[in-house]
């Protein structure tokens, strides 16, 4: 039977995707599923990516900006600010991969320009759109566990050897800035603003066996505590996430390994691997995320993550890296005005 509901007719989404790396394989199909037309621009691999998904590609940023309304920045972190600013100056709304930048100042510059030109920019902190994290957030807001007191977040993946810039701390900010920033953001989302950051990191000394693990402890306003543990492990390490949120009235727990709806054992095969979880049994969280952003661009509700959240996550990761370097706890207390004290 045909639906008699009337749709609010919106112009088709027109996306300019910058970059052709791993994350574009989650964003591009999601945009297409949302009915968008996509144009790709990338220093490398644009033609291959465009061919794979049957979209067009262009050879220059100017051409891209002339052919879209929304720019999705999926490039290595050091280039985020430049592309985001170019897009904003061209009057585009912006989706920017996390981390927005490697410094709070760069992130703030993007936010300031967005405000100046009257366009919206959102950071792709996609973990907020993973249903297990969204469910935990809503459970906390509903008061199901009382006041959060002690939380743990863990994220384990394979060492990203396939793209050299990830392993280069100067380009990616290392595991804390690139991987653990997801859970730093989630910890702040769940337990509130952060006042202190303490972190340690341990790196494999063997180039043949690259591996790094870091542990970050956050003190939140009001005294709640969180720790975030991240691993970039040996080749073939199975991607896994888990969390535990203990509150005054109960505990929430999730583990991607034991709470999966499908487990497959099909004999000898390539083991594990990857930097991303299997999300194939539900709507892609990347799609949920981009739909929410697109809706906001069209004048709808603000999404669940703001550019300020992304900038604050960068600040927490910077503080964690500073703590690792100095061995001391780092204060990240903000003044009421929202500017670092």
């Amino acid at each position, binding site marked *: 039977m045909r639906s008699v509901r009337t749709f609010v007719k919106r112009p088709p989404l027109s996306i300019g995707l910058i970059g052709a790396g791993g994350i574009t394989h989650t964003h591009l199909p999601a945009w297409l599923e949302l009915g968008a037309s996509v144009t790709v621009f990338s220093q490398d691999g644009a033609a291959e990516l465009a061919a794979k998904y049957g979209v067009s590609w262009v050879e220059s940023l100017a051409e891209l900006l002339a052919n879209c309304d929304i720019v999705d920045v999926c490039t290595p972190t050091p280039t985020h600010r430049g592309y985001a600013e170019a897009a904003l100056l061209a009057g585009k709304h912006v989706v920017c991969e996390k981390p927005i930048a490697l410094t709070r100042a760069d992130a703030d510059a993007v936010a300031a320009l967005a405000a100046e030109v009257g366009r919206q920019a959102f950071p792709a902190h996609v973990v907020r759109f993973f249903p297990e994290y969204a469910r935990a957030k809503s459970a906390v807001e509903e008061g199901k566990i009382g006041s959060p007191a002690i939380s743990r977040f863990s994220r384990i993946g394979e060492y990203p050897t396939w793209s050299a810039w990830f392993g280069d701390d100067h380009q990616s900010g290392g595991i804390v800035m690139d991987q653990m920033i997801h859970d730093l953001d989630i910890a702040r989302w769940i337990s509130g603003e952060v006042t*202190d950051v303490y972190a340690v990191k*341990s790196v494999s000394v*063997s180039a043949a066996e690259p591996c790094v*693990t870091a*542990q970050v402890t956050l003190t939140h306003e009001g005294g709640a*505590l969180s720790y975030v543990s991240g691993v970039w492990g040996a080749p073939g390490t199975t991607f896994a996430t888990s969390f535990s949120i203990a509150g005054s009235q109960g505990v929430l727990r999730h583990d991607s390994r034991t709470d999966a709806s499908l487990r497959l054992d099909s004999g000898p095969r390539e083991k594990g691997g990857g930097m991303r979880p299997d999300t194939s049994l539900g709507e892609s969280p990347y799609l949920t995320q981009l739909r929410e952003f697109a809706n906001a661009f069209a004048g709808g509700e603000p999404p669940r993550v703001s550019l300020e959240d992304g900038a604050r996550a960068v600040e927490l990761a910077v503080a964690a890296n500073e703590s690792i370097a100095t061995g001391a*706890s780092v204060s990240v207390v903000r003044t009421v005005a929202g500017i670092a004290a």
Partner: protein
Amino acid sequence: MSGVTSGRALRVGLMSFAHVHAATYARLLAGWPGVEVRAADPDAAFASADELRGRALAASLGVAYADSYEELLAWKPDAVIVTSENARHRPLVEAAAAAGAAVLCEKPLATTRDDAVAMQAACDAAGVTLMTAYPVRFSPAFVRLREIVEAGGLGALLGATGTNNGQIPVGERAWFTDPALSGGGALVDHIVHIADLIDALTGLRPLTVRAATNRILHADKPQVRAETGGLVTVGYEGGFVVSIDCSWSQPDSAPTWGGLTLQVVGAAGIAEIDPFAQHVGGFTELGKSGLHLGYGVDTDELLLAAFLDGARRGGQPQPDGQVGIRTLAIVLAAQESARTGLVVDVD
């Protein structure tokens, strides 16, 4: 150090029923072949009236009873288990050592470094062994983990995360929440097991400790006078890093007391143990609660077996008093860190 002639029963004394583990040990020892057990709990009179202690508890456990520690030690026990309040271990360990008994002391070994060192010295002077009651070390999961690590299965070790979360120990014994007798809160209760496992696994020396604590959990319980939640980070020699969640975060009505997990990250692999995971789960309408029917190996029994074997044959059982001292040093540094907000060097 002389062992016990085989053929006669090994005499095991239990000093104090203050700690709930005393009853666990007494029950196991009451049925242990070749063991004669006798308990003394003279401070029972100072305990809360609703706590089953002293001669009445001994009778219910089926173990003989002495009215005083002097009387117990005059019985010439070969081995003594000290299960008094955490802050009251020292005089009992010293008395047991002076009486020539091998000593097993409940964890934490003490609540001050001076006490712990003095206890070890007293045992050394008397020529008896001191063992610290860290049963998790005997878990088959940990034994296997140790074999994996020692065989190089994880490659070079980088770090670990440990959790030891439990229900808050209120109700059974009032002293647990009195810092003067317990030595503190969640930090002193739950850091030591993980610290002991790391010690056994790596042999690395802890250098720095940073701890943050709060009292959000159980804030509604007036009898609680110490931290109920804590996150502790320990930096070891060689750059090995460990973070521990030692919180009393298992809800009061949960179907099991809590648990312990340890995840070890190496350059060639990651291993995780959950020694108390072995259970049949379910739900019961009787009481309308989840069921958690553990079936794992009884690590208390393995701990006692190692202790009794040491007492019989005269060898030093592990975990010894020295690891009790080393792990206490981490607790004391964590308490100082939580108090000052600083990263503290381990003594």
